[in-house]
């Protein structure tokens, strides 16, 4: 009962949040919050792969690129409506994840990490080569969200695209959280967690290892692709350079900052890593200082809080309100 009421309060705060924000400060912060939500989806997708099935992906930037480009192409050249094209982009990326899962089946540990890292570098390098479709190095323009503009109609500005995107991202994030936290308690989820331990033992229990590993890659790429599509429609244009190595590394940092194995941890990590540099910039004028502090805090968290920020006390309240998953040991 208590948990339910916390959840309700939390939900209402989230719903009115952009209005408070727009009343107080400029819209740039709302844009950053949207980016945080998208990175949360990406981090949850990576967390899903690592904490539930024990596979590491360093190629999430590439998945995001595939999602962003396919959704943009679907809307711009094929003229599909936005929600439909986002889901379709997720499916296309899921297919890409399935294909990259095939060589990944036999790989373990750092071999898997480096293989996915290579995949993450190939895709942004390959995109400009297919110039007729992807627009080369110049990139593509993609349409922005305008579904929830009516909510902001009381304001003098006619449209606030970031406000619309906020609700879209929030809905998708909630759906992804709901899906992953329910999946882990299902038959499929138990099969996944059997894979984290001993593969041979899982096999002897009658779990089809190949099938479930590919399924895990499909799901994770699907979420990453949807995050990529949202990213494209939030920013409004995409170019290959956006999906560089750091796009793959940042979700990993967020996951470990917040806490591996929990969705709440992923979201908190995304918040800290995206907003901390901005916060520092307002106080310190030295160039690069925000990122120096960010990397220092990351190292400190890794050394002193092995289970991430979630494992420390003050955030227990927040984690209560979010659907909680299995923590990694």
């Amino acid at each position, binding site marked *: 009962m208590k948990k339910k009421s916390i959840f309700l309060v939390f939900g209402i705060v989230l719903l009115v949040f952009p209005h408070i924000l727009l009343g107080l400060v400029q819209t740039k912060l709302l844009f950053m919050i949207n980016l945080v939500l998208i990175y949360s989806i990406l981090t949850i997708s990576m967390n899903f792969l690592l904490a539930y099935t024990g596979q*590491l992906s360093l190629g999430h930037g590439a998945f995001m690129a595939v999602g962003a480009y396919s959704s943009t192409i679907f809307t711009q050249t094929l003229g599909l409506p936005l929600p439909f094209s986002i889901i379709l982009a997720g499916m296309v990326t899921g297919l890409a994840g399935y294909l990259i899962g095939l060589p990944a089946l036999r*790989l373990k*540990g750092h071999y898997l990490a*480096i293989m996915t890292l*290579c995949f993450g*570098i190939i895709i942004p390098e390959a995109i400009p080569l297919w110039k007729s479709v992807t627009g080369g190095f110049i990139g593509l323009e993609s349409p922005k969200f305008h579904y929830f503009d009516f909510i902001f109609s009381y304001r003098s500005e006619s449209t606030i695209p970031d406000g619309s995107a906020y609700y879209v991202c929030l809905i998708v994030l909630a759906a992804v959280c709901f899906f992953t936290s329910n999946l882990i308690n299902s038959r499929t989820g138990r099969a996944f967690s059997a894979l984290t331990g001993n593969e041979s033992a899982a096999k002897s229990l009658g779990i089809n290892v190949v099938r479930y590993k590919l399924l895990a890659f499909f799901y994770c790429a699907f979420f990453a692709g949807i995050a990529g599509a949202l990213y494209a429609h939030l920013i409004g244009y995409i170019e290959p350079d956006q999906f560089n190595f750091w796009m793959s590394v940042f979700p990993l940092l967020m996951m470990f900052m917040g806490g591996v194995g929990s969705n709440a941890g992923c979201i908190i990590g995304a918040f800290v890593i995206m907003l901390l540099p901005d916060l520092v910039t307002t106080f310190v004028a030295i160039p690069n200082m925000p990122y*120096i502090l960010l*990397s220092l805090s990351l190292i400190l968290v890794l*050394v002193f809080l092995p289970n991430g920020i979630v494992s420390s006390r003050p955030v227990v309240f927040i984690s209560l309100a979010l659907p909680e998953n299995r923590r990694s040991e």
Partner: protein
Amino acid sequence: MEDLIQTLVIGITMGGVYALTAIGIVLLYKCSGIVNFAHGSISMMSPYIAITMLTGTFSLLTDDLVTKQVMPYWLAIVGGLAFVIVIGLMVERLVVRPILNRSHLHAVLACLGVLMFLEYTVGWIWTDDDRTFPPVFNEYSFFEIKGVFISYNNMAILAIVITSIICLQLFLTRTKFGLAMRCTAEDMDAAQMMGINYKKVLAVSWAFASALGGLAAVLLAPQLLLYPSFMMGVLIKGFVATIIGGFGSIYGAILGGVVLGVLESLLSVYVSTQFKSIFAFSLVILILSINPTGLIPERKFSREV
């Protein structure tokens, strides 16, 4: 024919530098089980330090290189390498050793944190702009053998690479401490039971790896431009080389580096430079699909990320 030999010479030179990076990665992996993503950024410090010692100033305008040299070239490079070794030891002591007993993924992440820290700190001290770094010999000095042009620089790079590989090999096979390092690489627990000071081995392997990386960075800096993340691409090429050669041995790393360098230069001359890096990374995926532990497989599989 001359073209082919010319291409091979350039390829082998680049391959040697890749091999230096790859040896550093393999050395650390063998001794501590860590895939060191911070290797490139630790090495990147050495040309920056060297150029500052060379000119005696932090503002590295190109004119300064010609007009005021406060220190001989070789001394500046040695100073850079010494500094890089200190950085490597500090990273080992402050970041890696406290989390060594945890999952290796923690160590990988901590190395990524170190990578970010060093790159942004260098960007803060020396700014993010591109710099030029003076090569060992004049860029345009070369000699000719039967129509093949070989620059003194490439020769110097090859000589330095080969010398350092031989020195490392002699250290590992001829000294008692080298034996201890090889034992630790073979079986960490057994080595500890035989009374080998594991922490010392770890520190020395970090020092060696950082020095080799720093050397590779100093040799590469004149060819690539000097900017905070200029070793990132080389580091990933080093990973590719280790995958080609297998994470198992230093010989594998050397072989992988040279093979990668030669293939890359052949491809960029005879096909297109556009596909150079795509080719290298596709090669990794191809090799790993055929053989999941690289071309020369590791003997044991107990260490996992």
